[in-house]
């Protein structure tokens, strides 16, 4: 087992009165793609948000790249090298597509701009709407923008929450290809309901239920195990 870039141990998260995460422990291996699966409301998004520091953990530890980050504020987590694509197409509607990308580059270096070419190959629509306000994009295009925005940054770890939501099947196939390409130089944690995408991209999986990890293992094993797959969907 390769070394873990992110490890959660006994993480509890409260939102107001509600005890959402009740002791989540999981590890994401460096250079691999880890998939979080589970019912709606199982706590997958909350796990990602807790790592980001958006919903801070009330107990437990989060270690990223050898650093404890459970107390860190979101911007510090981001600066440490964690990229985040939230669930609900969090593009900035008042900004143009171009400005959305500029915002995503902490340093506007030539390399970052160079990455845009590959992004345009993947998502041609974004080039078409380059100077348009992101608010006028369709739902799927916004989703593309939200994902593509994470690609231009220089992240050691990318947290992606349900990227396939609202995308046409053909685009999902593109997405699978690009995520697999991305896997070459970045570690990915993916929350995904689309099992096809999850199985094509993921190497390891964790299944969450009621704020706890109930199952984990290699993706390959899960693909072969029909019964477990049913229960996780």
């Amino acid at each position, binding site marked *: 087992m390769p070394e873990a870039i992110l490890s959660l141990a006994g993480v509890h998260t409260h939102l107001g009165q509600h005890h959402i995460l009740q002791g989540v422990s999981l590890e994401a291996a460096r250079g691999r793609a880890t998939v979080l699966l589970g019912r709606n409301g199982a706590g997958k998004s909350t796990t990602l948000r807790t790592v980001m520091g*958006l919903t801070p953990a009330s107990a437990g530890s989060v270690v990223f790249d050898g650093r404890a980050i459970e107390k860190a*504020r979101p911007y510090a987590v981001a600066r440490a090298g964690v990229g985040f694509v939230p669930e609900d197409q969090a593009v*900035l509607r008042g900004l143009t597509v171009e*400005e959305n990308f500029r*915002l995503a580059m902490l340093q506007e270096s030539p390399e970052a701009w160079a990455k845009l070419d590959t992004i345009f190959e993947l998502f041609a629509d974004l080039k078409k709407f380059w100077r348009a306000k992101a608010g006028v994009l369709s739902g799927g295009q916004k989703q593309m923008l939200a994902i593509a925005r994470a690609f231009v*940054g220089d992240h050691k770890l990318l947290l992606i929450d349900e990227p396939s939501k609202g995308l046409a099947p053909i685009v999902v196939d593109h997405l699978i290809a690009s995520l697999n390409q991305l896997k070459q130089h970045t570690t990915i944690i993916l929350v995904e309901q689309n099992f096809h995408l999850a199985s094509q991209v993921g190497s390891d999986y964790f299944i969450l239920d009621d704020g706890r990890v109930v199952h984990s293992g290699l993706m390959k094993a899960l693909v072969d195990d029909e019964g477990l797959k049913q229960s996780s969907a």
Partner: protein
Amino acid sequence: MDVLNLAHGAFFAWGAYAGFAVLNALNGLGWVETGTLGQGILSVLLALLAALAIGGVLGLFLERVIIQRVYGDHLKQILITMGASMVLAEVIKVLWSPNNQTVLVPLSFTGSYDVMDVVINKFRVVAIVVGLAVYAGVMAVMQKTKLGIIIRAGVENREVVQTLGYNINRIFTGVFMAGAALAAVGGSMWGIFREQITPAMGDENLIFALIVVIIGGMGSVTGSFLGACMVGLAFNYVAYLVPKLALGANILIMVIILLIKPWGLMGREQ
């Protein structure tokens, strides 16, 4: 910034008093009423600088201590900045006095230019130039720079901007300070221009600012600029004809604009 700050008028008044205090102190050195042109310019610059500083400090304090606790809660923002504005105006009365004060102004700044028989007050020219410069500066920063992008993005969605690696709290504190400092500089210029300041000047000018923003549409600098022009022109014109109705004329304009465009001239529906 999506924060409604009713304490802006108080920053304005504080700037005026800071400038007033500096000019008073410099007059002790003989710089202001009797000084040379250079000393006059320098003392006005120092007064504006003091206003800038006091505005920045007050803005920092208010943002950190009070406003940061109520981000996202418009109701509380309005309630609390209203209280803060009251307290700041009262502190002025304690530190100086509740009564009017006369601002000492360097001789070189009083008087007027005479351009082809049109008499133009000198300080008015300075004020217009500074005003235009500030407008152009704010527009340029907001539209062209990375900082402008971050600020506009932060207004829309703080959380996303944070996850992209920007410390939006600190940036917003800075923006708030800048706004407060600008208001204070405006206040000290107003004081020098009018040669008279009162603790209530903040409230009076806040009303103008509010009318300007309502007419222009919230969140639009250009709209505010348009609004300011309309309000200023109407005020002066009516003040010339029927002095007592000047403010009424502005309220009337506001009512008419709201009838036609409920969101203000440049405001967008949200």
